Every structure is written in structure tokens, then in C-alpha cells.
């Protein structure tokens, strides 16, 4: 990765950090809920023990609902920081699982 790209990425991550710190619920409903839904959907696709094609189709129906659930959670929990940290944790854990589990052949 070039230093310029690295610099841009660091700035973006920094801005996201500030946004999450200042407005955890708003940042979570706009961004973190979507990221968590996509990564969590990928984890379900990789780990659930069902026939792959059926599972992919069921998940195509479920992922928008998972996203909706995460969005709703953003304004449900009492603590804003807990919302953001929960969604970021789900995203990180899901990312690790995706990296470790090989794609179905």
C-alpha cells in the first residue's frame, strides 16, 4: 500500500472515529449497522450448516432484515457508546471469522 493511500485511510478512520465519538447513534445507524449487517451476513453464509445455494437465497432475504434490526437497535439501547461498540465488535469479530473460514467450493 502506497503512503498516500495509507494516509487517506488513516484520515478516513480518524474522521469515522471522531464521528462515532461525537454522535455514536447517528454514525451507527448510517454506517456501522450496514457494515455489521454485511459482515455478519457473510459469517452466516460461511458457517451455517445448510445447503449452500438455499442458504444464499435465504440470506438474501434475511440480510436486509438484519440491517433493519441493527438500525433499530441504534436508538433502542440506553447508551449511545454501547450501540456503536456493539456494532463495531460484531463487525470486527465477523471480519476475523470471514478471514479464517475458507469460502465454499
Amino acid at each position, binding site marked *: 500500500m502506497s503512503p498516500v493511500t495509507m494516509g487517506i485511510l488513516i484520515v478516513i478512520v480518524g474522521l469515522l472515529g471522531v464521528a462515532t465519538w461525537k454522535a455514536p447513534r447517528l454514525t451507527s445507524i448510517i454506517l456501522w449497522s*450496514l457494515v455489521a*449487517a*454485511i*459482515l*455478519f*451476513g*457473510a*459469517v452466516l*453464509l*460461511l458457517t451455517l450448516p445448510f*445447503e*449452500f*445455494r*438455499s*442458504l*444464499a*437465497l*435465504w*440470506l*438474501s*432475504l434475511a*440480510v*436486509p*432484515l438484519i*440491517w*433493519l434490526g441493527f*438500525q*433499530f437497535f*441504534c*436508538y*433502542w439501547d*440506553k447508551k449511545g457508546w454501547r450501540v456503536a461498540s456493539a456494532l463495531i465488535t460484531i463487525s470486527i469479530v465477523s471480519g476475523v471469522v*470471514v478471514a479464517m473460514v475458507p*469460502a*465454499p*467450493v
Partner: protein
Amino acid sequence: MDRARHLRNYDLHSWTGITLGLIVYIVALTGTFALFDNEIKTWEDPNLRVAISDETPAINDVFSNWVEETSAGGTELEFVRLNYPTTYTPYFWGFIQYHDENDEHVNANQKWNAETGEPIAERGNGLSYWTLNFHRDFLWPSFLGGRQIGRWLVGIVGVVLMLAILSGVVAHTKIREEAYSMRLKRSQRLKWQDSHKVVGLWGLPFYAMIAFTGAFLGVVGLVSQLAAAVAFKGDIDSLIGAVLGPEAERTGVQVQMLSADEIAQIRHPETGEQPLSFVVQNYGDETSEIDIFYAPETQLSTVEIISVDGATGERITDDPFKEQPLAGHFVNAMSPLHYGTYGGIWLKFLYFALGLSLSVITALGSMMWIERRKHGNEGTKSETFYNRLGYFNTGVIMGLPVAAISIFYLDKLYVGAESGRLAATGFVYLGVWVIGLVYAFIRRNEYSTTRELLMLTGALAMGIPVLNGITTGDWFFAHLSADHSVAAWVDFGMLVCGAVTVAAGYLSPAERKTKRRPNAKIAASPEAAAIPAE
């Protein structure tokens, strides 16, 4: 639920409505027109107002010659498709996709008369194309990323609508009481508020269904595919292979393909239906396969597909990827559910009424939001700011139906080249919409603007049968019981809807009526507590 959570949820409902409410309104209202895509197609093109015979006439020679001539300069024919004549598309319609000498994808299509097989002159896309696709993807311009972006945006609107519905249901703790509460003699704001709740609660199952299916049709292309792509670490080809099965490679051995006329005779083994269309992969090669599309046994499915060998016509039954899993039936049901194509014209009318009510709910929601801030104590900005917001809101809401009706006039009065028809349609649609917006700012009275633009919309809709009669000679009253009466019923529907709209406009107030404060009992209710007295 504790008060802080209730307020957070109420804010969520309110802010999803105000930030994206107008876009939800646009998608919902354009959706009510998009429901009648097939009917509008027949209305716009008098050549389609013909009844088709039960027996499909021969087309193979014409079709195969066109395929060979059109793809002659290309390197690889990717697929070939032919649609047989149906009630709404009473002509043969061929499509091919091939690689040209520069290895670019090229698409071509051609229509032929169902009786004579003569090529039909291409009529440019216009009214029906705009009506359907503006709902699907706003016809998002290519310089802003293209129509896929627009489709995602519409899908996100579906997710936002689901969120608004969920938070709205949670916000209303007394659903049973509110479902029957219509205080029409009280203030304007209470009238709007009660209408918003009553219509919202009674139509809830429909709105939830339309939001979910809309979100699925729009956003599944983004979110679910992204999730799958992440699972496959970006290897999209493997992903497609795992879901759709591996693609058969061409061997280069040429075979005589089953003819289009022979395929037309292959009836569905269970239902006995005639084919609607077919798609050929690896055309002319020994590995060719033909997917034949039939009207589904259940209407809650788009099509039913039977795959046969391209040369012998033998049914392919040993390919697990041709079997439809249970989830596939659910996925297939999304489009019929969303567009109401599973129950005949009366179901579409029901969808139309419910879709219209969804537009009204979203419009009322944004109107209440502004009203509370303009005439209540929730506003933190100046009165001028809320006035301007009100004019903008009214102009967008009331300008859209005028724009939607105005393109019916353009369709019949357009005299330019067919290639420019779509651009002219877009220009008139957006231009009339902007004029509606400007009118709201000039009028400086949301009530009068609403009333006048509503009556204008109705009057224009009532003029559509006259326009059709004058320009095509097909007066609707003479065709309502004809063999092909679709266009006549569009005229009739416009006449009735136009009359109702004019009446609704006539009965609307021309200015805001100031009422005295609500009584103590109302003021003490938890929701009224959030509403300042007038």
C-alpha cells in the same frame, strides 16, 4: 417502555420521515403508476391494441435469419431470446447479446408483427418506460454513477420505510384506540395526525410487505451480494458458480438447433401452458441449452422454467442447479408481491388505493413535522425558514402528480424523432415538477397550492380520454367491451380518478383554519403533550 426510550424511538420515526419522507413519497406515488405498466404500454402505442390468436404463427425463419445477420460481425453469441406474443405484448420480440470484434458486449432486439412476421418499426421509449423506471431507479443519470446506483437508492428507501414502520408501531402504545380515533372536528393538525395513524395502522400489513419487497428488489443487489462477495473474499465468479452452477463451455461442434416454431409447441408437462419465451445459451453449439419460460402455476411466481437440450429438445432433469429450492420460490415471489401481478386487475386497483394511501401518509407526516415547528413550540428556526420548508414540501408533493399526468399528453402530442422521445419525456416530467415547486413558492400558501394543483391534476387526468380519442380515434366508450379493451379501460380509469381528484381538491380548504386550544383531556394525553397548542 421508559420515557427516554419512547422519546428516542419517536425521534427516530420522526427523523426518518422528515429526512427521507419525501423520497419515500416519490417512490410510493410513482409506484402507483408503475403498477399499470402493461396497461400504459398498450395505451401509449395504438399498434399494441390488437387481440392475438390462440395459435402461435411461424416465426423461425425470420428469427433465425435476424440472429445470424445481426451477430455476423461478432465473435461470440452469448445468448438468444425470443418472446412469443401475449396480450400486452402482441408481437414477437427477439433479443441477442454478442461480443463484437473488439470483444465488447452488444445487445440488439427486434419486434415482428404477430400475424405477418413483418418487422415492427421501433417506437422510442417514453411514457411507460419512464413511469416504470423512474419508480425503479429514478432513471439515475450515468454521470452520477448510472442506474444501478438509483436502484440501490430506491432499495434503501424501502429499508428506511421499514424502519419508519417499525419505529412507528413501537411509538404507538395504544394501537387499538388509535386505529379508530378520527377527530375530524378538531384542529387541522389533529386531523392530519389522526389520518396518519389510522391509515397507517389499517394499511400496516400492506406497507410492511411493500417496503420489504421493495427493499429486497432494490437493495438485495447491494447488501446481500456484498455479504456474499465478502464471504468469497471478492471472488465473484466462484460465488456465481456456487449459486447458479458452472457455465457450460462451448465445444465448437455445430448442431442444428431446435426451431423457434418447434419450441412454441413444447407445452408445459404439468400445466399444459404454451411457452411465453425462451433463452438459448451457447446457440448453435452441441452444449446449447434452452430455458423455456411458462406462465407459472401459482401467480406468486414470475415464471416457471423448463430446460431442454438445444438440439434434441429432451428435458434436462439431472442438473441440481435447475431445481428450484424453497428459498427460490420466496425470492421469486418478491416481484409479483411488489407489483401486484398475482391477482388480476382488481388486485392492482387495491394496490393502487393502498399505494396512494402510503403516499398520503408520508406526505401527512412531513406536513405535521413542519406544522408543529411552524405553529407550535418545537421549532428552533425562524418562521421564514419553516414557511420556505412548507412551500418546498408542498411543491414537491403536489407537483409530482401533475408531472406524472403531463407526460401522457407529451406521449400523444410528441412530434420529434423517436430516439428523442425518452429525453423529451424526462424534460417535460422534471420541468412540470419544477414548475409545481416554483408555483408553491409564488403562491406562498400551502393550502391553496395543494387545492389548486390537486384540481389541476384531476382536470388533466380527465382530459386523457379526450386526448386519446382525438389523436388515435379510439374513443374509450366504443372499446370497453371490445376484444382488446385495455387502453379503453385506462381512459376510463383516468376519467374516474380525475373526477375524484377534482372533487378532493374542491373540498380541500383554501387556507389554514385556526381553531381554539384542544381541551384539557386531549392536552393531557402523552402524545398531545409533545404537540404545542395552536
